[in-house]
């Protein structure tokens, strides 16, 4: 397996992965999308709410706020010793108490949430939760737990994760003689991969980064240009809200993948033993 990182910043990770089957690539994608445990607010107690938003809307908005997650110190509630009842090992409490003393409306931001664990805090401080008028008050108590994205999207570790085939364009310059045809090919490509230089059709060097495999060039050249994909090579895109760093995310993905394969093998062995008995 060969891996090359093309782009990496706080929000986005793009890499090319080689010598991997499509089933494996899809397993990685599905685990990233649904199986990574992430913190989100699950329970909200509203003691006072003077804003024009209903309690249910406030609770839903609070649940949607992404929280920075520390996977080492916390358990999933169903795996916890307390049996999911709620204990310091599986639950974090966040409180929010804002009193508007000013003379104009005040926006309550996610930065106003006080967490009892300094590691589990909202990823951004400027997410507006609600707005209160002068002389109004809001007192909220929230409980965040770890959860999986297959139960609710608020627990998703990434906001986008997909892969695409590595495109390969094969063509021979001598085959296409007609000047009009050349112009048509370079004009019809939606991402402008072909350039006409001195009446010669030239393909951009890093065309695989932007080619969408639309096959417009193949259709307009009557098959003289061939658009194919390289087997076992994929371009992966991952985009996060800052919930987990990419290193932790990828490491956790493969941990979960190995766990699933081990579980599958043990189940398979059980079936084999049973079939021998009967």
């Amino acid at each position, binding site marked *: 397996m060969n891996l090359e990182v093309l782009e990496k910043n706080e929000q986005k990770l793009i890499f090319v992965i080689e010598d991997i089957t499509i089933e494996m690539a899809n397993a990685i994608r599905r685990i990233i999308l649904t199986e990574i445990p992430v913190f989100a607010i699950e329970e909200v107690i509203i003691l006072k709410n003077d804003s024009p938003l209903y309690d249910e809307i406030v609770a839903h908005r609070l649940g949607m706020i992404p929280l920075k997650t520390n996977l080492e110190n916390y358990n999933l509630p169903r795996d916890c010793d307390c049996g999911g009842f709620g204990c310091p090992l599986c639950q974090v409490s966040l409180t929010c108490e804002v009193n508007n003393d000013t003379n104009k409306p005040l926006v309550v931001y996610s930065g106003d949430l006080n967490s009892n664990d300094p590691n589990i805090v909202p990823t951004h401080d400027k997410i507006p939760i609600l707005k209160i*008028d002068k002389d109004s008050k809001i007192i909220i108590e929230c409980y965040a737990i770890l959860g999986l994205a297959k139960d609710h999207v608020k627990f998703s570790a990434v906001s986008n994760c997909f892969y695409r085939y590595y495109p390969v364009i094969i063509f021979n310059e001598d085959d296409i003689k007609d000047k009009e045809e050349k112009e048509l090919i370079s004009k019809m490509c939606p991402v402008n991969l072909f350039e006409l230089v001195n009446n010669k059709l030239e393909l951009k060097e890093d065309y695989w980064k932007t080619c969408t495999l639309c096959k417009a060039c193949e259709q307009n050249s009557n098959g003289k240009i061939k658009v194919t994909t390289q087997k076992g090579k994929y371009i992966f895109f991952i985009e996060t809200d800052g919930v987990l760093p990419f290193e932790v995310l990828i490491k956790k993905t493969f941990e979960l993948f190995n766990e699933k394969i081990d579980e599958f093998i043990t189940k398979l062995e059980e079936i084999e033993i049973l079939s021998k008995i009967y």
Partner: protein
Amino acid sequence: MIIPIRCFSCGKLIAHVYQPYLDLLEKGESSEIAFEKLGIDRFCCKRMIVAHVDLIDDLLKFPRLQ
């Protein structure tokens, strides 16, 4: 009412860029450049911000029914 926290279609966080987006427009920036600066690149997220009508300021004038 108030800007939704996440994009309805893809789930990207968009609430925290709404105010910076309005500030950029006030400076005379075009929406295209504003979206580029704020890191919003899909059209599902763009429509969340472009099509949003902030009505909460009007509703603040009325007392809440308890």
